[in-house]
């Protein structure tokens, strides 16, 4: 009995400092997290950009170009791409919102106000109450506008982040090896080879995965734009915001199975709002277009560009997407599968390392 008690005490003592360190570590993370949250998000976004742009920079460097200059060239090219897309997309979004607003105002809202007046006239015969209701409505609209200005203020800080992201991305691409070396130099000798190998494997798999996802999203987006553009030509512009919707379809492609629906629904909504004569015909064509894009993606694009290392069972995907939705809404759903992919790759490689290295 005493022997076991002694063993237990020595075990507790042996692990005491380790447990204490972990406890303080977790506490420190919890305390510091709110202050570094926004910076952390910026670094993660910059890191994703760096992973996507790295192959182009490496390619230019292999042709003899200085790495710094190669990064600047690639970033300018991307900036031109983003600005051009923004010029194409933003007017389309504004037009879409205007259209929805006009439709709503002319039909739905007008009908509601007429019905409301009729109700007041018939049942209460009380113009005062009607005015009260109108004032309340005005107040809530003003409140919404106030919220909107708050959102715009946030958008200001968001714009500042956008200016910082390219800066961070530049250094992440330029000095990524330096950062890795600095990180690994702190690892004790016992874990050195294991950490170096696992770090390389994780970074290799993750860059392949993120690059694959980005390329796949770009191809699906481009195919959707081409499809919707053809429908526009054929049916006298029922989906005039095709660039915006194509872009949306590309991004939504990050969510397996659900992505195509997210792409098709806005296109169909645009048609319904426009209410053209041959609506059913166009809706059918949109469905066919998105089905075709998915077919091309699943048969030819995905198997070539998306990394096999993050294969997931459909059931896992559905559960992960639902959890992502619960945690962070639409954004959570969008990034649930890639985040799970990153966690899966990281854990798989760490387990591989722990199994294969003798840590005596």
């Amino acid at each position, binding site marked *: 009995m005493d022997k076991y008690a002694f063993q237990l005490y020595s075990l507790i003592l042996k692990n005491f400092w380790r447990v204490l360190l972990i406890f303080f570590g977790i506490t420190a993370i919890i305390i510091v997290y709110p202050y570094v949250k926004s910076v952390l998000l910026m670094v993660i976004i910059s890191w994703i950009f760096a992973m996507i742009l790295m192959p182009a920079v490496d390619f230019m460097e292999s042709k003899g170009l200085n790495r710094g200059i190669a990064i600047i060239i690639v970033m300018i090219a991307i900036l031109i791409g983003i600005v051009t897309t923004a010029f194409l997309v933003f007017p389309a979004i504004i037009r879409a919102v205007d259209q929805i607003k006009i439709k709503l105002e002319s039909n739905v809202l007008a009908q509601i106000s007429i019905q409301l007046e009729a109700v007041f006239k018939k049942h209460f015969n009380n113009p005062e109450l009607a005015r009260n209701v109108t004032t309340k409505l005005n107040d809530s609209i003003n409140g919404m506008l106030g919220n909107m200005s708050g959102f715009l203020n946030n958008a200001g800080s968001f714009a500042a982040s956008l200016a910082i992201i390219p800066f961070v991305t530049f250094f992440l691409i330029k000095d990524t090896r330096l950062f890795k070396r600095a990180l690994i130099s702190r690892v004790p000798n016992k874990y050195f080879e294991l950490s170096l190998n696992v770090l390389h494997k994780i970074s290799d798999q993750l860059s392949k995965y993120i690059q694959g996802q980005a390329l796949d999203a770009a191809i699906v987006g481009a195919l959707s734009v081409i499809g919707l553009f053809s429908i526009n030509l054929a049916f006298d512009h029922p989906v005039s915001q095709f660039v915006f919707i194509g872009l949306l379809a590309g991004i939504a492609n990050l969510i397996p199975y659900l992505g195509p629906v997210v792409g098709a629904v806005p296109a169909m909504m645009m048609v319904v709002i426009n209410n053209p004569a041959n609506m059913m015909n166009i809706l059918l064509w949109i469905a066919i277009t998105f089905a075709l894009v998915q077919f091309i993606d699943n048969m030819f694009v995905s198997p070539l560009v998306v990394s096999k290392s993050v294969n997931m069972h459909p059931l896992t995907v559905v559960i992960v997407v639902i959890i992502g939705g619960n945690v962070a809404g639409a954004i959570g759903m969008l990034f649930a599968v890639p985040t799970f992919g990153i966690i899966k790759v990281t854990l798989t490689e760490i387990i591989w390392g722990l199994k294969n290295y003798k840590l*005596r």
Partner: protein
Amino acid sequence: MKNPIWEYFETRSKEKNDSIFKILKTVPIFSDLTPKEITEVEKIIHRRNYKKNEPIFRMGDPGLGMYIIVEGSVEIAEENEDAGKKRLAILPEGAFFGDLALLDEAPRSASAIAVVDCDIIGFFRPDLLDLLYRKPSLGIKILWGLARIIGERLRRTNEQLSKSQSETEALKNG
């Protein structure tokens, strides 16, 4: 006037880098490289310090890359759970080992253990592959050096094998 403290650290760092440069230049894999190319290699190597009797890698671990001894000496030994440790060689300052791991991840055929406190440079496969992609001409020069070493080793093995065969034949014939 320069700050003497700053000057001291600058000189120390220059001396340290010079010694890495000299050591790398003596390793056959890097012997064909120009000073500028050696500087590129310096950017991707890892410098480590090991205490006496500390293992650098263990037999059976996945191979990751080669090590060059800057200071100290390293024991190469076979480790078996039943038979214990069997010393194969003691490598002196300037020697290198584990170079085959630059080519694949096959398990290490022996363990490397520091005999005294050691200062060691590590050069690893993922960095070589990355270098091959980013700076192909430099990567090819290193691979060429590696191929030369392996070729030389194969030639020596063939000679030893043929010598052993002749000795066996002689013994058979009486």
